[in-house]
């Protein structure tokens, strides 16, 4: 068992600068939690507080129901993996992995067993006699992970461990870490600024901004049902398209009206929400994911579909699909459409918007309306 609970955890630095406000989270045993957000959002500070490297200004942290606020880091039964691994240059991979245990005066037999077990999990048994200079970037990273694994910690804390790797290796190591989590069956807390890493690795993600938790959810749910405009914009690549407009009622139907008077149909089943919360005639933000903007078909006359004509500004062929860029009411938009698109830059393209795919956000609070 290695659950983790953070109760109203707060970090205030001297000069009254608050880095983390009221962080509440229940992390279950064996979960892979990813703290994600832009730089300065408080994710690393939160991780450091869990590790005990940063004093908590307020609140409580429990590991396995044991309050650890005043327990020094070395006694918290955790292991950390940082962005830049620093292997001992004159030691073999085996000695690098064994070094921490040697410092803790573990018996030689136990060290040997733990290192071999970890090497097996990491599939680096054949590399144990090599020195760091004889290892590739990915292999070094695995040895660095091995140094943490041999400790058999209750919780793994990882602070942007892949940030210094090149793009190809990062993708490879992402998979390795996911596999590792499955094999170890231990709680992982992983910090990244990269939403793709968060989406692909986490069983749940904690999206943070300016020291506040914006949403704790499964990646899928954070993507499909973002709690606010920030989460909607931060999660997803390419980013969600956002337009400003007014909710209007015409012929007993609700529309999102753009500044150029284009009308986009809103979902009928959300009508009550908008009316009850007095959004009719109010300005709101509308978000739509690039993959929800499909090529318009004149034959489609569905009641929940709006067709908008746009001029293609840029086309980026991505293989199976094309990213097309265009402008609506001075806002840069992007659509992911099928690679069979036969229109060229400068030509007019019809795109269709399904009412159910729309997200609306309050203009003042930026919170999700639906």
């Amino acid at each position, binding site marked *: 068992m290695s659950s983790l609970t953070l109760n109203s955890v707060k970090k205030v630095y001297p000069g009254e600068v608050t880095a983390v406000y009221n962080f509440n989270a229940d992390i279950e045993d064996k979960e892979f939690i990813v703290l994600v957000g832009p730089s300065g959002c408080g994710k690393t500070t939160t991780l450091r507080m869990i590790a005990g490297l940063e004093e908590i200004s307020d609140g409580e942290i429990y590991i396995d129901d044991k309050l650890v606020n005043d327990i020094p880091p070395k006694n918290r039964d955790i292991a950390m993996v940082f962005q830049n691994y*620093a292997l001992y240059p004159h030691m073999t991979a085996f000695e690098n992995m064994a070094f921490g245990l040697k410092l803790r005066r573990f018996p030689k037999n136990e060290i040997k067993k733990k290192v071999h077990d970890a090497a097996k999990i990491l599939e680096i048994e054949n590399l144990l006699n090599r020195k760091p200079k004889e290892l590739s970037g990915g292999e070094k990273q695995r040895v660095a992970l091995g140094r943490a694994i041999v400790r058999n910690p209750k919780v793994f804390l990882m602070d942007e461990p892949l940030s210094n790797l090149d793009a190809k290796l990062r993708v490879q190591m992402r998979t390795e870490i996911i596999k590792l989590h499955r094999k170890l069956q231990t709680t992982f807390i992983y910090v990244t600024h990269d939403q793709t890493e968060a989406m692909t690795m986490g069983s749940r993600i904690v999206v943070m901004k300016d020291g506040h938790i914006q949403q704790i959810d499964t990646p899928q749910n954070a993507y499909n049902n973002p709690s606010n405009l920030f989460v909607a914009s931060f999660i997803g690549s390419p980013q969600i398209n956002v337009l400003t407009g007014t909710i209007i009622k015409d012929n007993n139907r609700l529309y999102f009206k753009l500044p150029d008077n284009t009308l986009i149909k809103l979902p009928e089943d959300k009508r009550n929400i908008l009316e009850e919360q007095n959004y009719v005639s109010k300005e709101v933000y509308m978000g739509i994911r690039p993959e929800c903007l499909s090529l318009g078909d004149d034959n489609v006359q569905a009641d929940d579909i709006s067709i908008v004509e746009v001029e293609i500004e840029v086309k980026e062929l991505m293989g199976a699909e094309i990213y097309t860029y265009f402008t609506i009411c001075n806002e840069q938009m992007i659509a992911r459409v099928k690679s069979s698109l036969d229109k060229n830059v400068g030509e007019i393209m019809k795109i269709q918007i399904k009412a159910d795919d729309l997200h609306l956000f309050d203009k003042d609070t930026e919170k999700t309306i639906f």
Partner: protein
Amino acid sequence: MDTLSTINRILCKKILLISRDVSYAYPDTQAIDIDFKDLARYANSNYRGYNIYQISISENKYFICIENDKYINDKITQLVISMIELSLSTFEPVHNIVYKVINEKYTKEDLKQFREKYSDIIKGYIVLIKYPQEYKNEIYEIIINSIDTQLILPYNEFFLVISNEDNIETKFNNISKNILTELFYETSIAISNKINCLENISYNYNNCLEVFKLKDKFKILDNVINYDDMILYKIVADLNPLIKNSIYQKIFNQEFNNIIDTDIEKTIEEFFKNNLNLTDTAESIFIHRNTLLYRLDKISTVSGYDLRKFDDSMIFKIAWLIRKEQSLPVLKK
């Protein structure tokens, strides 16, 4: 120590000589895994496969550890102990000399005498590494396994290291990371200039101490700091308070205080750290270059100083350091 190798040749046994501050071993210097604290308790007995004997030379306590299965104290042992005592009473270990240099116990003439003898050892960067007593042995192990050193000795709350390696900052950054990973202890490391003679030790040692003072004063979060990078901090620390106030007021007006938040603060810090390079700064804080330009424009509009211009950035940096030194004003969230 040559005496230890002679004894080892005669006895064919591993031999260690351990004092509070320095240890010697023959044949393997990395074999010392006995703590000084334990030795006093086990003097005149067998401990962890060694016979422990205690001697005192000029008020310094030493322990001689000779590899053996059971404790013996025969005439050969007494002879060995006498050899070591004699050797220690005539031998001035380099660490003793360094201690005395730091404490300015030598005259210039004394130092000249040592200069040639220790010219190979006293060559390299002077580095101070802070350590807590509880991790003294572990941190020592991490250092010697991470970098080639000419000398490493504990002094007050630091390890004083002389190392002649290239990329010294990167290597000590790695040491700092390893100490953090292995021990969950955040150390502070100060690197001074390269020295090539004994006389320079004291000056550079004091520079390292000054680095620690400036780190505290300006609340610098970096764990490894090079003295050369602290010169501007030193200038600001020594500035007349009236001048400090006038520079501060000029830049940090109400308008600036209204726009500053964690993003702007991070942008300023990283822009300076990346030598005013737009691409590197944008990459380091994971933002688009245009976002960075937007933030820099915003700073320029409210403060009147464009950080992309050298002269403006220089004045701004001084004001920024004054602000950090005084921890003012409170950041608006």
